[in-house]
């Protein structure tokens, strides 16, 4: 079975089975360290089943002319605790969503395996049910096996 949660350094990708579409994702991070005085931005990307970007219509992300990307504000994490969830609603129901942590300014990748301590709450629906059958998953970055 292919993995739904894929973590690569400072990037996490959620890739749903063919028969499902994402409605909403809530992302929580554990303490982000090594950033020091810099700010952090979360670059968000979403693709529909045809591979087209549907990020523009996502509620909770904004376009940054400087970054040239859609981004969400980093919620901030206290020490050794999970952050308040960053919740994004997807109007155009993607099958894949990715989050990338960058420092600002500088656009440098934040930390290593940053999402290893994350929790993602994913609400999706079954296509065959025409949206009526909702599924709720919790994806635990800590349990992710890096492959």
């Amino acid at each position: 079975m292919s993995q739904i949660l894929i973590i690569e350094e400072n990037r996490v990708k959620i890739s749903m089975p063919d028969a499902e579409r994402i409605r909403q994702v809530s992302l929580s991070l554990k303490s982000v360290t090594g950033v020091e005085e810099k700010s952090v931005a979360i670059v968000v990307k979403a693709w529909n089943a045809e591979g087209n970007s549907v990020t523009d219509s996502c509620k909770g992300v904004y376009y940054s002319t400087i970054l040239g990307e859609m981004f969400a504000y980093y919620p901030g994490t206290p020490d050794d605790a999970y952050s308040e969830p960053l919740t994004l609603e997807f109007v155009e129901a993607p099958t894949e969503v990715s989050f990338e942590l960058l420092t600002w300014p500088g656009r440098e990748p934040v930390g290593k395996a940053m999402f290893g301590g994350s929790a993602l709450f994913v609400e999706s629906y079954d296509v065959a049910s025409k949206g009526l059958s909702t599924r709720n998953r919790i994806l635990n970055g800590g349990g992710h096996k890096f492959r």
Partner: protein
Amino acid sequence: MIKETIDVSVVIGFSNWGLARLELAVRSIQASFGGLRGEVIVSDYGSHSFEDTRELMESLGARYVYTATDGTWSRSRALNAGFAVSSGSVLVSTDADMVFSPESMETIGSWILDDPSLCLLLQCRDLPEQWTDAEIDRVGYQWDTFERVSRLRPRWGMGGMMAVPREVFMRIRGLDERMHTYGGEDIDFATRAKRAGQRLLWVDDERVRMYHMWHAPTRETHSKSVAATNAIEFNKKIVYTDKTFVRNTPIWAHRPADAGPLVTVAISTFNRANFLAESISSVLCQTLQDFEIVVVDDGSTDNTRQIVESFDDRRIRYFFQENAGIAAARNRAADEARGYYTAVHDDDDLMTPWRLEKHFEHIAAGTHGSFGSFVNFDDSTGEMKLFASKILNDGTIIDSGGAPGHGTWLVETDIIRRLRYDESLSSGVDNNLALRMVRSGVAMKHSGEIMMLRRVHDGQITVSDESVQKTSARQTRQLFSYITTKWGVDKLGAERGPKDYVPIRLGKNLDTLVPFLPDSLVQRIAVFRGSLECLPHEVRRRLLERCAHFVVERQDEDSVVRYSGAIVGASMRDLALLRRAGVEFEVSGELIGSDEGMEESVPNDRAAITEAAVRQAFRDFVEQAGDEDYSSFGLVRRIAPDRKVSGIGWTRSFTCGDLKETVLFLRFTNSVEAFKAQIENDWTEMELLGDAIEPASLLNELNISRRLFGASL
């Protein structure tokens, strides 16, 4: 046979309720058989620990039977499990908290042995609070005191004891196993016995007393739980709305070994070997499997015997006789029948798969049988045409002397044995019998179902012998000679009623019947799910080889729980095997030569097929494991195959070809507990059902726990 040595069998349903009370109940019953030969059976339905109970019962000389359960209590099933091993002529049910006065069972048993038309009931007398099992155990049975201090329970109901002749229990197929927990199962049973012709009698005799040992009430505890409240409501619905009396159809799980078949399917045949195999297969495909098939071969010279024997099914009995005609063959079938009901089935026709089950949805008080409509199909093209049967009474039958399609009848076997087919007729024997049945007051209810697919072919009697049939109908109509008076005509008109016909389910949608046409006309796909373990290994292997795909679900990497798969091009014999194995299946079909691409509708993506199997199993888990204590359910994916859980769920592995996944099905009190378990165990992916998921709240709870208990969370 042990059966001949036992007069009365008393069954007590039991589960984890304390042995002192049970022992007092058992001892009092054993002491009350008097001159009758009695046995007490304790049916333990799912106690967590049972060795002590077994030892105690064996030391008392009581019989003990244990049924493993998923934790759900069902008084109906517990009692049936006890009766399944009983051998008494009189069957008595009671509870573990009742003690019986010394002449009770002797009196109850004698009454029923003397008059088998009875169904006895007994209202219990409640002992006051000081008379607990501990107190009775300390001072012994104080019958005079009990009589003085007890109070007749002021409730309109069965009261705690019920006794019927064994034959009645068998005929109405025991207590209704759909019923959960407790509540209503005994009144339901007694009402059904009454509908089947028994006289109900509440025993009011000073020799028979049943005292209820005091204990803290359990009803309030049960009523507070959602699951038990729902169960009781479900039971009420059965009691209030289900007017039938034969239950546990299609499946009687706790069936006594000596129970005869509910139905005898009677097939009379003569040189129709080419059609007979499919005719028999259509019976074997019935949703109700509680039948035998009696094939009376009326002197065939073809390979009829070989065809029948090729089924290798003990439920099929074959009888050969020298050619004596259809009436004699049908009478022979009635004489050989062991079933309480007989379903008439012709050797060239096919039953719709629901036929036998549907009959029993329409047999209620005062009804001796039921019938339905049928569809003619062209044996070479599959073209179908509906023939709606009229309701049956002497008003509707008198018009033409014609009866509803004979191959749709199910009627008490004894009626056929007594009235018999007229062997002086060569044809139309069914109409003749129908007229005599109606005249005798036999009531047959129209089911509104299509019960039979009638094959139209050149060799039909109605084609080759049509004139004889018409003559026969005319002759039988003359039986009603009294219609020649005006009084008679008026009477028949009044009895006929305003409508001759009833609505026919699927009557306007005959295409749904295509999958049930013969193999030569249709291509089928059967999608099944269930255990095939009861099939012989070689048969199971061959069946699985015919699957386009199948998933094997195993428990703990070990024992097979079930298979799920799809057979493209399933034959009627394949369907019969699936039915025999007791698996659920859905069948779709199209006429051979039609343009629809059936095979394309079968998924061939193994990942999607496995996913569907996982999800169905998860639904099963939620249904079985949910109760008032557990309201959140986790499906954990992408785990190592050796991960096991105990207490809170199941470990299941699913294999489809070379694809394999192990999953956990877990139950939790709430979503917080589930989330914490996920983090603690490093489960990457968990799908949750049940409680609402509120990320902020869950994260907050986790942060609090981490502050309190450290980073292990």
